[in-house]
């Protein structure tokens, strides 16, 4: 009988190299030098963190609503922070000088934004129409409960119209798209014009004159997309809606002046809300513009190329502070009399174009990394320039440059604090102004720490999200 060989069962790893002890030995105490560094590092952390936590959490004053609470705590020898200072001014920190009865408009705007971003930022979880409808339904319910019927009606339209558009765009057959492009373009142009005109006049007749132009323009863009982009997915439609419909909605919500909403001039805007408006519009505008600039810089058309190169190089050559300063102070000097141009708008344009120039270079870096074969393959298929760029080159480029773009987004968010030099009080500006309130002198640390923590939360969110995107899209590089 043949003897069957049985391997001896493997022995467990030595105890000193497994478990917590093993992990410590390998990672923290692997050599004398590392041991020393570990001890020093632990000492440093011990010296820094406990006093900070004690100041900010355990010894801090959290309850109360007047300065007296802080003073009595300090008089009792308690050296902690007094967060009552922030609590009393929380509304100021969030909304700036926005009139109190109108603040629900900001809340509504951010609620709608939040619900529309959920499926867009986490597309993996909301691929199906049903799940998106579920989120939308929740959004409608929340809006109805918090803000009433009229906003809920808007929310229903805003959430469920993309389903309709997706259905309609499915009517395009591949043959239609392939053939008869030209006749389709002609009828389409007439159709778009008709839509714009119809919306324009109906909005005007409804008595909302100021809204007529933006609303009809956004309707025009929507119908353009419907006619010429062929079949588009549900999520793409949601993006288009975010840029075309939500932006108009947000603008009128915040500025007011229509539908019985009192006008709130940008003069009153401030706090975290202003920071987010500057950062949000900055990011939303800078990214598309930067893509165009990057393509323009690589274009073979001499005029386009020269324009893009000179714009990028000029903007990169000046500091943001001076761009803002020029936009706020110098620019009005060159305008004819009686022509005014909102200061915040000037700052927004300044920030967006400044960052567009930087991001254009990041994207150009990505474009250079795409092998030539990709372009040639697309051209061999007879694709047009925009189709090639939109469907082949850009998707690859953008996933390559996620880290660089995230970098720019982060610095944009933090650079919004520079609007302070032109007299707009963003979160940090409000915090600084708060320090000069004669009733609340001496809470500098609390103000700075609060502003810092808020900025950190947003920046950390952006950077984690970008890491997630990288992991998702870098399948063939990692």
């Amino acid at each position, binding site marked *: 009988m043949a003897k069957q060989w049985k391997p001896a069962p493997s022995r467990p790893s030595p105890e000193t190299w497994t478990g917590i002890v093993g992990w410590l030995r390998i990672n923290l105490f692997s050599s004398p030098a590392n041991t020393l560094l570990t001890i020093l590092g632990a000492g440093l952390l011990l010296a820094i963190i406990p006093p900070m936590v004690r100041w900010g959490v355990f010894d801090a004053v959290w309850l109360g609503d007047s300065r007296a609470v802080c003073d009595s705590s300090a008089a009792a020898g308690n050296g902690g922070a007094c967060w009552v200072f922030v609590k009393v001014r929380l509304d100021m920190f969030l909304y700036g000088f926005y009139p109190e009865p109108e603040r629900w408009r900001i809340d509504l705007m951010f609620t709608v934004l939040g619900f529309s971003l959920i499926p867009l930022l986490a597309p993996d979880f909301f691929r199906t129409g049903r799940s998106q409808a579920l989120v939308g339904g929740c959004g409608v319910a929340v809006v109805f409960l918090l803000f009433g019927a009229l906003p809920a009606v808007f929310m229903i339209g805003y959430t469920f119209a993309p389903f309709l558009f997706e259905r309609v765009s499915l009517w395009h057959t591949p043959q239609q798209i392939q053939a008869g492009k030209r006749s389709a373009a002609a009828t389409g142009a007439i159709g778009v014009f008709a839509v714009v005109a119809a919306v324009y006049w109906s909005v005007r007749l409804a008595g909302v004159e100021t809204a007529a132009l933006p609303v009809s323009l956004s309707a025009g863009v929507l119908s353009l997309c419907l006619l010429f982009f062929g079949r588009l997915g549900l999520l793409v439609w949601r993006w288009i809606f975010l840029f075309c419909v939500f932006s108009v909605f947000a603008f009128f919500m915040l500025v007011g002046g229509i539908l019985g909403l009192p006008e709130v001039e940008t003069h009153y805007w401030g706090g975290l809300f202003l920071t987010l408006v500057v950062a949000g519009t900055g990011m939303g505008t800078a990214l598309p513009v930067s893509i165009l600039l990057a393509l323009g810089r690589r274009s073979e058309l001499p005029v386009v190329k020269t324009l893009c190169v000179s714009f990028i190089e000029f903007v990169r050559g000046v500091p943001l502070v001076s761009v803002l300063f020029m936009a*706020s102070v*110098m620019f009005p000097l060159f305008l004819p009399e009686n022509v005014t141009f909102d200061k915040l708008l000037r700052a927004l344009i300044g920030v967006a174009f400044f960052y567009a120039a930087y991001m254009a270079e990041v994207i150009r870096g990505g474009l250079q990394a795409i092998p030539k074969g990709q372009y040639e393959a697309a051209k061999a298929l007879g694709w047009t320039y925009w189709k090639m760029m939109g469907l082949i080159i850009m998707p690859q480029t953008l996933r390559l440059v996620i880290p660089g773009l995230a970098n720019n987004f982060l610095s944009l968010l933090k650079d919004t604090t520079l609007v302070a030099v*032109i*007299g707009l009080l963003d979160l940090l500006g409000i915090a600084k102004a708060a320090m000069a309130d004669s009733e609340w002198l001496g809470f500098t640390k609390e103000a700075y720490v609060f502003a810092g923590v808020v900025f950190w939360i947003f920046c950390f969110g952006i950077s984690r999200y970008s890491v997630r995107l990288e992991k998702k899209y870098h399948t063939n590089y990692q």
Partner: protein
Amino acid sequence: MKFMKSLVVASAITAGFLANSVQAGTLDAVKEKGYVNAGVSGKVIGFSAPDAKGNWTGMDVDFARAVAAAIFDDPAKARFTPVAFKEAFTALQSGEIDLLTRNTTWTFQRDTKLGLEFVGTLFYDGQGFMVKKELGVKSALELDGASVCTQSGTTTELNISDYFTAKGMTYKPVVYESADEATVIYDTGRCDVYTTDTSGLAARRTTLGNPKDHIILPEVISKEPLGPAVRQGDQQWSDIVRWTLFALINAEEMGITSKNVDEKLKSNNPAVKRFLGVDADFGQYLGLSADWAYRIIKHVGNYGELYERNVGPNTALGLERGVNALWTDGGLMYAPPVR
């Protein structure tokens, strides 16, 4: 910073050229838009800062409200735009703001070269020093070799350099962008002396860890007349702002307050009657109504009330009237008569 400085100067000069076309008729422009836009500092204790509810408070703010009250009979028609020091002059020239009440020191160059017109002094300040008691220093003359914390970009920095040079002493400047930082650094002991305007010193001292450990030295090394300014070339507008200031001071001298102004309308004193526009229309020369001064006092109060409310002994700054008392009480506050 050098770049910014040249940018500021360049824009101020450009503004000076261009402004000729836009400067006429500030009053009409203000009436048309319905509010006075005042450039304020936005973060100076007692002069301009928003409170916890977002209402602006302070001397500078109240002055702008007085101007709004004179024009519109409504102090709420003043708006406040925080302007940075570097931006202030150009903002005024370009018409971004109508009035600068940014506790700005009235100096020769600002009045002449930068094309501003200072209308008077709202608050007489001066630069002083604060030191720790334990150093045993009794006079600024003992500060040779000291390290001095201060804030950049203001006259403060220049004054201290002048003072130490004139006295043949040396010092180590420790310069910070904001007064907050400079104060915190001083409190941690990185520098021996903290210097700024005495109004600021008093306020800053209350924020230190232990205010009693610090003293303010008796020397005041500079003149800092803080006053409102308008752009040059619009005589009517600068008259309005100037006489708003004078009305505040005159009212205190005549004993007219926001509380008793209605009774004073019935006064037999011809000066009071003239001032309040009971039987004379002096407002017409300013392009305002006859009761312009009445409106100011009714809504905002007189100079003394402004002072007590914002920087006086019962506020966080706790400043005595000192040189800011009326000339009749030995101070410097003096206004030409309304007649």
